């Protein structure tokens, strides 16, 4: 497991997912915002996007699981001169489901990037960068970034990206053109038009494991499902203790199955009832149940948008990292959790993988 924090990266290894050994910090004093364990080749490649408040952003990779790191001499992601823009950070790293050499990156400012050499160099997607809506995209507290990149595993021409604020955008032509896909998502904070074409504050989107055109969105107030590949959305928040949160994690193999980590509200960013918990659905959001065994109470922390994830074990593991530097693991689908790590800096991203 990679645990990206406000002040560096820790790598946690376990034979049984009960007892963990931590190795770190790597990149001490850097915010580790994005991680990818790319297992499409042997050896697997670990890609890490981070930024130092002093020395700027960096993207490095390791082909020996963190024993050594490689950085492109001029930086893997550099905005072209004509954009007059500087990279602030890489927020998302995603393996393409169709081409084993292709890696996608989402950045701040709002850029989508494609690598054809497994993450060593990237090219800016011009279709999204030059979108006429760009001047009206906003910045959340953490900055304005493409925080979600979801290629469609059944259609290489189709992809969804999301940002807050701005919302969901889709391409159906391999990235040449992009259209907003926010119909049905409420933007209560826009008093003159609460149902705009774009401008929504989508916090995270996850794709269903079985039905590729089914997606789930945790919004800034509101939880939604799309059954048309991210064009229109319906609310699935009934039954949840709150409609606010940052993250959404789909089960890697079971359809209709999703976890959320609820936050009391946008004005009270603590767990509902001060009980750290996850909410699980097995029916695509028709019903929800609370999973909290092993999670602390009272708790006044929360879980950020990329600080939760699953592994690739046959008995799927679920991992959540908190802003007060704790990481919890579940090996029974969220029914119970055990502590993996504590006293780390704020956890920004968690990614896990099963390696032989």
């Amino acid at each position, binding site marked *: 497991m990679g645990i990206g924090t406000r002040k560096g990266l820790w790598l946690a290894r376990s034979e049984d997912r009960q007892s963990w050994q931590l190795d770190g910090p790597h990149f001490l004093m850097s915010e580790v915002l994005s991680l990818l364990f790319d297992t499409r080749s042997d050896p697997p490649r670990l890609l890490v996007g981070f930024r130092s408040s*002093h*020395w*700027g952003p960096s993207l490095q990779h390791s082909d020996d699981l963190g024993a050594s790191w490689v*950085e492109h001499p*001029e930086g893997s992601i550099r*905005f072209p*001169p004509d954009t007059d823009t*500087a*990279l602030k950070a890489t927020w998302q790293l995603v393996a393409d489901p169709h081409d084993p050499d292709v890696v996608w990156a989402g950045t701040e400012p709002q850029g989508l990037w494609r690598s054809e050499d497994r993450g060593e160099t990237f090219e800016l997607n011009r279709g999204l960068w030059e979108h006429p809506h760009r001047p009206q995209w906003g910045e959340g507290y953490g900055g304005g970034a493409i925080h979600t990149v979801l290629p469609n595993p059944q259609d290489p021409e189709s992809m969804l990206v999301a940002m807050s604020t701005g919302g969901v955008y889709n391409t159906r032509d391999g990235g040449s053109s992009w259209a907003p896909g926010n119909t049905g998502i409420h933007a209560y904070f826009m008093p003159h038009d609460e149902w705009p074409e774009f401008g929504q504050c989508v916090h995270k989107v996850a794709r269903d494991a079985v039905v590729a055109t089914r997606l789930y969105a945790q919004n800034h107030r509101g939880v939604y499902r799309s059954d048309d590949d991210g064009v229109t959305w319906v609310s699935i928040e009934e039954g949840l203790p709150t409609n606010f949160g940052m993250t959404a994690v789909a089960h890697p193999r079971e359809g209709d199955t999703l976890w959320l980590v609820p936050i009391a509200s946008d004005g009270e960013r603590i767990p509902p009832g001060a009980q750290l918990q996850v909410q699980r659905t097995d029916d695509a959001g028709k019903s929800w149940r609370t999973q909290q065994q092993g999670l602390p109470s009272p708790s006044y922390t929360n879980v950020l948008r990329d600080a939760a994830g699953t592994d690739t074990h046959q008995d799927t593991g679920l991992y959540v990292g908190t802003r007060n530097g704790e990481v919890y693991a579940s090996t029974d689908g969220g029914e119970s959790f055990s502590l993996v790590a504590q006293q780390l800096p704020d956890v920004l991203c968690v990614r896990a993988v099963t390696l032989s």
Partner: protein
Amino acid sequence: MTAKVVLPGLLRDLADGAAELPVELQSQASLGELLDAAFAPWPILATRVRDERGEIRRHVNVFVDGEDAKRAQGVLTPVTPSSTVHVVNAVSGG
């Protein structure tokens, strides 16, 4: 004559341990030109100090003969063949 760029300890590993990078200058130049020459053998070091537009990063300060370049002309600040340039990480952070 030889101008020099003095590196902070945190960046010296990126210049093979060097604390100072000498640059031969025949005449006055800009700070940007001096940094380009000093960092040419060390491209990763260059990315730590300046972004891809060539601007000095927000929390990095560069002093030309004791003068804060950001309060002068930025990377266009004049340097002479005898200038000493200090690169300093700003006193910021949490």
